[in-house]
C-alpha cells in the first residue's frame, strides 16, 4: 500500500501552483492582447489621415488614437500631481504625528474612501458640477480638471496607505539615530525617513498611476467624449484611451474596428508601462541624490 502524501507536501504543491498561476494569467492576457492587437498597430491607428509629423505639431487628428493618448497622459499627470503631494503628506501625518483617536478616525476615513466604487466618484463629480451650476458658477461644465480631481480622490487612499506603511515599517533605530545626531523630528522625517521610505512610497505612486490611467467609470461621468481631439484646456472635454477602448469594443461596426480596440488596449498597456518606467527612473535618481550627493 502506498503511503499517503503528507499534508505539508500538498500545501507546498498548492503554493507552487498558486505562484505559477499569476505569471501564467499575465502571459495568457498579454499573449491574447498581442495576438488580437498587433495586426491593428500602424501609424494610421494613431493619426488616421493626418500626416504624423503635422499631428505631432498640433494638427487636428480625427479617428485616431493620438488625441486619446494625449488625453490619458494629461489626465494621469494632473491626477497624480494632485494626489501624490496630498497623499504623501497625509501618510506622513498618519505615520509620524497622529495619535490616539484622531489617528483611528483618519485611518477609518481613508479605509472608507478606498472602498468607494469609481462610478460613485464619477457621480460625485457630476453632482458637484450640477451644484456649481446652480450656485456660484452657472457656466461650470464637466472637463479634464474635474476628471483629474475625481481620479485623484479615487487613488488618494493608495498613496496614503503605502506612504504610511513604508514609514511605519522603518526600523526604530533610524529614528533614534536621527534624534541622537541632533535632528529635530521634522528634519528626521525629511532627511532620513522619507528618503528611506522612497521605494514604498513609489510603489503607491505606481498603483495610483496605473489606476488613474485605466479608470473608465469616473471619466465617463465627468468629461470624456469620443471625438474631442487633443485636450485644449483644463476645463475642456478630452479623449482618453480606456474610454476609447470601451467605446470601440461596445459599438464596433466591423471586425476591423474590434481589432482597433485591441490595438488601443495594447497602446494603453505600453503607455502605462512607460509611465511606470518614468516613475522608476525618478525614484532611482532621488535615491542616488540622497545616498551620495551633499545636501544643497
Amino acid at each position, binding site marked *: 500500500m502506498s503511503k499517503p502524501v503528507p499534508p505539508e507536501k500538498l500545501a507546498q504543491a498548492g503554493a507552487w501552483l498558486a505562484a505559477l498561476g499569476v505569471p501564467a494569467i499575465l502571459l495568457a492576457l498579454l499573449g491574447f492582447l498581442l495576438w488580437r492587437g498587433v495586426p491593428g498597430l500602424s501609424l494610421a491607428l494613431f493619426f488616421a489621415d493626418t500626416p504624423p509629423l503635422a499631428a505631432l505639431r498640433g494638427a487636428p487628428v480625427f479617428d485616431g488614437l493620438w488625441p486619446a493618448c494625449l488625453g490619458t497622459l494629461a489626465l494621469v499627470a494632473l491626477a497624480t500631481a494632485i494626489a501624490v503631494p496630498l497623499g504623501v503628506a497625509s501618510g506622513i501625518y498618519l505615520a509620524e504625528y497622529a495619535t490616539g483617536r484622531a489617528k483611528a478616525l483618519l485611518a477609518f476615513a481613508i479605509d472608507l474612501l478606498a472602498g468607494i466604487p469609481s462610478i460613485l466618484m464619477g457621480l460625485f463629480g457630476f453632482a458637484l458640477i450640477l451644484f456649481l451650476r446652480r450656485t456660484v458658477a452657472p457656466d461650470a461644465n464637466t472637463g479634464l480638471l474635474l476628471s483629474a480631481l475625481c481620479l485623484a480622490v479615487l487613488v488618494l487612499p493608495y498613496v496614503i496607505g503605502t506612504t504610511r506603511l513604508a514609514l511605519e515599517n522603518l526600523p526604530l533605530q533610524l529614528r533614534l539615530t536621527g534624534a541622537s545626531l541632533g*535632528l529635530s523630528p521634522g528634519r528626521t522625517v525629511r532627511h532620513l525617513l522619507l528618503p528611506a521610505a522612497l521605494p514604498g512610497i513609489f510603489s503607491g505612486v505606481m498603483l495610483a498611476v496605473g489606476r488613474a490611467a485605466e479608470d473608465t467609470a469616473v471619466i465617463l461621468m465627468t468629461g470624456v467624449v469620443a471625438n474631442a481631439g487633443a485636450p485644449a484646456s483644463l476645463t475642456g472635454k478630452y479623449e482618453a484611451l480606456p474610454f476609447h477602448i470601451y467605446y470601440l469594443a461596445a459599438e464596433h461596426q466591423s471586425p476591423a474596428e474590434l481589432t482597433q480596440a485591441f490595438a488601443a488596449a495594447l497602446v494603453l498597456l505600453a503607455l502605462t508601462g512607460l509611465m511606470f518606467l518614468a516613475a522608476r527612473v525618478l525614484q532611482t535618481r532621488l535615491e542616488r541624490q*540622497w545616498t551620495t550627493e551633499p545636501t544643497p
Partner: protein
Amino acid sequence: MDHRTDALNPAAIRIRHLSVSFANRPVLRDLSLDIPAGGLTFLLGRSGSGKTTLLRAINRLNECLPGCATCGQIELQLGATRLDAYAPSTPVEELRRRAGMVFQSPNVLPLSIARNLSLPLAVTLGLGAAECEARTEQALREVHLWNEVKNRLGAPAATLSGGQQQRLCLARTLALRPDILLLDEPTASLDFKAARQIEELLAELKLRYTLLVVSHSLSQAHRLADQVFVLHDGQRIEALPESTFRDKEALMSALDELV
C-alpha cells in the same frame, strides 16, 4: 548612595533623583550621581539593570521611545554653559548634538561613507559643502579611518566591516563637535581585533572628551576606566574605588558581591 563632586570641580554630568519608567513600569528609581569632567567613566551592571536607559536619559533619547516618563534632574556642563537637560527651554536637538551617542551595534545610515557624516553636519549645523568636507576628513582621521576609506568615500557605508562601521559612527558623532560622548557597549557586537581598535580610540579620546561608557566587559573597565560605577536593578548605584578596579581579581570578586 550619592556620589557627588565638590563645588569647586563641577561634574560634567550631574544626576539627581532620576526616575524613568516605560508604560508605568519603573526602570530607574531615584538615582543620583556625578560624572566628573574629562576621562573615562564606566557604568557596569547586569543586563536589564537599566544602564542603557540611564545613558539615554542623559541625552533625552528615551523620549523617542513609546510610553516613557522621566522625572528628576540632569545637569550637563557643555563647554562654558551649564544646561538643565529637562528644563522646558532646553533646546533638545543641541543637547543631543553636544552629548553625542554611539550605539551598541553600528548604526550607519543607508548612505555613502561621506554622506553619513555630511548629512547631519549640513542638516543640523547648516554647514556648506567645503566645511562639511573638512570636518568629515578631520573626524575620519580622529578615528583612524581616513586612510582606509579616503579612496571610496562615495561607497555605501554598509560595505565597511563591523569595526569600521563602528568607527564611522564614532566619527559621525565627533564631527558634530560634542563635549560629552555617551557610548552604549560600543564593542559588544565586534570581534576581538575590532574591539581592541575601539578601545585604543577610547583611550585617546578620553584625553579630549568626557566619556561615559556602558559596558559588560570587566577587562575593558580594568584597562581603561578612570572611574567605575555599578548599577543594581535600576535603583542603587555604587562607585568602585580605584584600588578595586585596577586589580582584576578584586574587580571580579567585588562585582560578584555587588551584582
